[in-house]
């Protein structure tokens, strides 16, 4: 039961971050403006974050779905989600109305709620919970790690 639930969680959270990463990579300018609107980072760091963060999300999503280094990936995603949540909370407290920038253009096309508001905070906390569940659940199925261990005769 735990293993199946862990697999389902991996697929759900991995897909979400894979799609979010692709959406941001495909529209870096929009993501850059979103980061600027958050008014949290120094201007010199914003181009780097614009280039780097979407790729990190994409790689973590792929690794979680594939089941390769998936526990570490889940932990990293949990930490990232917590940081995103803090960023959104700071925006709410300062009274700035901005997109959270989570899904880029896809949010417009699919009419997803993408504002940096309390719904985004709740959503991120749910994502964090799922990531921590994946990290702390030792049993799962259909992982590339398991396949490699099986091949090398260690599993």
């Amino acid at each position, binding site marked *: 039961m735990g293993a199946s639930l862990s697999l389902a969680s991996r697929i759900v959270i991995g897909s979400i971050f894979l799609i979010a990463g692709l959406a941001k990579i495909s529209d870096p*300018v929009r993501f850059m403006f979103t980061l600027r609107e958050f008014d949290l980072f120094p201007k010199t760091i914003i181009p780097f974050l614009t280039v780097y963060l979407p790729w*990190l999300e994409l790689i973590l999503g792929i690794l979680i779905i594939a089941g390769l*280094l998936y526990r*570490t*990936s889940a932990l990293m995603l949990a930490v990232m989600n917590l940081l995103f949540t803090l960023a959104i909370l700071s925006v709410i407290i300062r009274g700035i109305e901005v997109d959270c920038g989570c899904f880029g253009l896809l949010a417009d*096309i699919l009419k997803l709620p993408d504002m940096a508001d309390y719904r985004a905070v709740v959503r991120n906390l749910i994502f964090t919970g799922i990531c921590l569940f994946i990290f702390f659940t030792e049993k799962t199925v259909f992982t590339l790690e398991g396949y490699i261990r099986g091949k090398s005769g260690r599993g």
Partner: protein
Amino acid sequence: MDCEQKGRGIAVRRIIFEMLLILSLSLLLALVYNGISPNGLKILPKKNAVEKAVHGENLKGGSVLQVIRFVCHEINNLNIVRA
């Protein structure tokens, strides 16, 4: 130090190593995709690409992502910059 503590130490070191591996891999891919040489670690050339996009020219990118971007823009008829 008993076995349990030793095991925990190894697990923590393994997680840190894996994190560094993932962070490095992502950085490398981001640099390669954006046409930035990993030798110089020059992040700013990306700014040129961003400026080009601001002025209406297409960004460089992989074919799949270009298709996604094209489809997104065509469906929604959005401008790339919402300045």
